[in-house]
């Protein structure tokens, strides 16, 4: 008998829900089988903690006296977008500080940018606000300079057009010089390989065909409760898939939102990639309802089952060539060694498996304590299996 969202939520309310993490589910399905597991387990929690560049925050900076309609705004010297109502701005994670030397002396350090401003706001640290305006009859003020903290401003809404990529490339460098990429530092002649996914703990790899994660899904976001508001940018369900629906290439993505004021430093961090730029490292967790046997089967996915493609970031990726050097699984990656073209290569991660595990655990505790209820999608993502 399939379960419904409201049945599971009733169980949560009564403290009778059976919730396990995506790691625990692997063992349960292995020992009890899909049928029994689907009957016994109500919810499987997932998590991921990694750099997610398409992130940013809408800030309402509050009205001044006299009033101002911002034309230009900087937060700690990092520009924010002002093409919105008078004191609304959008600060993107990868925006750089105005005086950043970029890659003028290569490789640049990229010490501070949008992701770091967001971290400073979350931490409650003071942030310098500078704003310029042209002045209107209704908004006469032309300049503002003051120090704010997140407590001083009316709203801070983290709103990310693309997070939680379902699978990702493994990056190597086939050239004979070091390269500096958004996938980290890559040593020449395939001296190392970098990957970025929580694998068996990753939200969209536990619901590969988007049967439960959709518009309106409540999630763990940066330590608070947030929501999925749609498929993210570059969401591409039509990639080659293994049996069980697992994508072999970067596929689905999520657009998410949540109240930055409720988030915590532990789960939202500014990041600097030498030679590349700045970004935001973010924690996301999704609770997946075990509605039927199919969901039990999907959530039992293990690192060995998930394949990623190895791509050369010295030539093929920058030139937009679709060439793939080989395929590896996340078990090999997590063990720290892969073999490509007969060469054994040490592998390093950009996504933190330890933190992903913590997030799945926290979400599990929230559900057990009745603090987090599941929400049925109000619309499905493109490519959803129905």
């Amino acid at each position: 008998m399939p379960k419904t969202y409201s049945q599971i939520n009733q169980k949560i309310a009564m403290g009778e829900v059976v919730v396990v993490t995506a790691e625990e589910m692997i063992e349960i399905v292995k020992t009890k089988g899909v049928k029994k597991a689907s009957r016994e387990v109500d919810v499987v929690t997932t998590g991921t903690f990694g750099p997610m560049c398409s992130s940013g925050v809408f800030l309402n900076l509050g009205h001044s006296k006299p009033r101002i309609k911002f034309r230009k705004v900087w937060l700690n010297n990092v520009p924010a977008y002002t093409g919105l109502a008078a004191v609304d701005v959008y600060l993107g994670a990868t925006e750089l500080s105005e005086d950043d030397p970029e890659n003028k002396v290569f490789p640049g350090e990229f010490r501070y940018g949008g992701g770091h401003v967001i971290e400073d706001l979350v931490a409650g640290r003071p942030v310098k606000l500078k704003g310029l305006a042209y002045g209107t009859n209704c908004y006469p003020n032309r300049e503002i300079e003051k120090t704010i903290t997140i407590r001083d401003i009316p709203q801070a809404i983290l709103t990310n057009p693309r997070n939680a990529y379902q699978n990702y490339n493994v990056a190597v460098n086939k050239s004979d010089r070091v390269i500096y990429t958004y996938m980290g530092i890559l040593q020449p002649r395939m001296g190392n390989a970098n990957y970025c996914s929580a694998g068996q703990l990753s939200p969209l790899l536990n619901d590969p065909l988007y049967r439960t994660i959709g518009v309106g899904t409540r999630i763990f976001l940066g330590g608070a409760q947030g929501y999925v508001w749609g498929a993210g940018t570059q969401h591409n369900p039509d990639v080659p898939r293994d049996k069980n629906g697992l994508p072999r290439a970067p596929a689905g993505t999520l657009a998410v939102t949540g109240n930055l004021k409720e988030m915590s430093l532990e789960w939202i961090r500014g990041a600097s990639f030498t030679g590349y730029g700045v970004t935001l490292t973010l924690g996301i967790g999704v609770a997946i309802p075990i509605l039927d046997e199919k969901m039990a089967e999907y959530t039992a996915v293990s690192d060995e089952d998930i394949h990623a493609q190895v791509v050369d970031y010295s030539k093929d990726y920058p030139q937009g060539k679709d060439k793939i050097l080989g395929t590896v699984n996340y078990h090999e990656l997590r063990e720290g060694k892969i073999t490509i073209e007969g060469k054994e290569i040490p592998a390093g991660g950009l996504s933190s498996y330890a933190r992903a595990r913590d997030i799945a655990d926290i979400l599990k505790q929230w559900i057990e304590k009745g603090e987090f209820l599941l929400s049925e999608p109000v619309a499905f993502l493109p490519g959803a299996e129905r």
Partner: protein
Amino acid sequence: MTKKRLVLRFPPELVEQPITYQLIRDYDLMINILQATVTPREEGRLVVEISGERKALEKGLNYLSQLGVGMQPLAQDVLWHQDKCIHCTACIPLCPAGAFVLDREKHLISFEKERCIACGLCVRACPYKAIEILF
């Protein structure tokens, strides 16, 4: 056999003297230079691994301090800020000395200072500035 990893600082007046040579010839010490810098008109800095008989090493280091060479254990100058580390493992394949160790059960990293040769690769690779080399 005793081994020490040290950061040596040479004041300007000593920069032109063959001190490493003396350590090898007169004190019978093995010197492995991990890093060397001379800044004009300022100082010379040498990151070295010195090994030899305990007594010889003691005498050699004594000779250095009498000359006015500043000495400090290397481990003291390399800091791993555990609170900043997210345990992503990006540093692990880059470290030539194997100073970052991953607990494969917990997926947590630890930093073994004594193995560090202060090459600085991890400093560039860490997006969270969790590693700091002071000199």
